[in-house]
């Protein structure tokens, strides 16, 4: 049974892979045609093969691994810091209604400011290198995670809180054994959104004087007019971002399964 597939199943599998592949294929084809059209010089628009060769060069020298490692280290440090702080504060603000009313205007004021607007201050206050990059990624991740956590806590089913009180739970137990797990699926959605936002600002953060990382690689390639390297770096940023998104989506699905909730929508915004 398992070895022999019905024609219908084969068609479905083809459909599943061919349709998404067609988009990528079209782009690659258009890229190839455009780069060999002679309208642009190879320095302006290298073809897919040249970009792959540049990538092979980076891999061979071990440079790629070093840059990816540096980026991931910064990213994970900033993201973990942002997620940890945002969830902790979100729990506190969501649970203490008056405290949130005091903090809310402040959050609403700072939140719409793009992390990029903080560039000059980040450099003034933190110098150049790792610290400003981490600060920028932190800012990008912190607010979505904080706001979804506050909303999640405030939206915990009052029936569950009633029941917890009925069984004589102390406040500490209500928060840790009811509010936290009840809010967790929503918090996970927030952390997913925050992850995407943080990765987007990684490159920006690494342009603030970092000497390593994918953002630095982009800047470095630009300075040496190595468009092939630049495009390869862009490709890597996209691929790693995609992988991170898939990884957290898988974690999210497991949480939803354990909680008995319907699977979350496929993609976070």
């Amino acid at each position, binding site marked *: 049974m398992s070895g022999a597939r019905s024609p219908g199943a084969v068609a479905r599998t083809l459909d599943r892979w061919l349709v998404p592949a067609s988009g990528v294929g079209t782009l690659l084809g258009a890229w190839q045609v455009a780069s060999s059209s002679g309208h642009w010089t190879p320095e302006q628009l290298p073809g897919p093969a040249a970009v792959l060769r540049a990538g092979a060069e980076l891999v061979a020298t071990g440079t790629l691994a070093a840059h990816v490692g540096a980026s991931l280290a910064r990213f994970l440090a900033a993201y973990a810091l942002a997620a940890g702080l945002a969830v902790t504060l979100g729990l506190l603000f969501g649970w203490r209604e008056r405290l949130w009313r005091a903090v809310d205007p402040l959050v609403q004021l700072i939140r719409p400011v793009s992390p990029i607007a903080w560039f000059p201050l980040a450099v003034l206050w933190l110098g150049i290198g790792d610290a400003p990059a981490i600060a920028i990624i932190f800012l990008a991740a912190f607010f979505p995670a904080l706001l979804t956590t506050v909303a999640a806590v405030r939206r915990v089913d009052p029936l569950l809180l009633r029941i917890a009180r009925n069984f*004589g739970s102390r406040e500490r137990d209500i928060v840790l054994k009811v509010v936290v797990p009840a809010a967790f699926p929503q918090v996970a959605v927030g952390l997913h959104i925050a992850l995407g936002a943080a990765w987007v600002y990684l490159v920006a953060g690494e342009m603030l004087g970092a000497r390593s990382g994918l953002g630095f690689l982009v800047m470095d390639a630009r300075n040496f007019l190595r468009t092939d390297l630049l495009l390869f770096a862009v490709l890597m940023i996209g691929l790693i971002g995609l992988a991170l998104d898939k990884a957290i989506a898988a974690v999210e699905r497991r949480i939803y399964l354990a909680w008995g909730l319907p699977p979350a929508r496929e993609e976070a915004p």
Partner: protein
Amino acid sequence: MSQVRIALRSVEKRFESPRGSVTALSAVDLEIRDGEFVCLVGPSGCGKSSLLDLVAGFDEPSAGAVEVDGVAVAGPQRKVVTLFQAYGLFPWRNVLGNVEYGLEVSGVPRRERREVALQCLDLVGLSAFARHHPHELSGGMQQRIALARALAVDPECILMDEPFGALDAITRIKLQEELARIWEQRRKTIVCVTHDIEEAVFLADRILVMASNPGRVKTVLDVRLPRPRSRTSADFDALRRRVYEELELVHELQPDYAI
């Protein structure tokens, strides 16, 4: 066994709103004895759920006193556990974890609470589902787990707010029978709000028929039918008819007289 468990003395409950004050309960005097099974029936708006909330300690009376074991109710307490129509199981905990919850937050050691929880699950006939999660179970099973969770903390009273209201008719009948059996075994004081008249006649020692505007206890009917009760006996039917009369619903039942 005739000790008074729950007492309401001249209880009044008003809800204030910008449009004025609504009297949900007016001049309710009531004593419920230990081990008694009391059902509250009445039209919506008669204050039956408000009455339950006062006994549970989820709400305070506007006037009068609500006492459990002679002590004024000051808030929710473990010895008066409420079952809700929506079950309220913790979805992230498995069945056993749900039943253990009350013992866990009162500091009962792991081994002991597991033992008690398994006994209670056994009592509701769901030991085989200890490791399942609530979402894997039917509504009827979830309510039985909620009952096991309540029994686990060995409360004096169990309050039920339309506990089987969300279930289909056959499941409801099965659960009523199970509840009657468990009540005979454990002899908890039970106060059950229901809109199902047959349920009240099947389960209750006393039926409190309530009326609205303002919410009040209109009639108290003693149910002296032998247990286990047969829903098809003439006495059962007569009493059911009596409740319908008290609720002034008989005129809607003309077809009953036809052949």
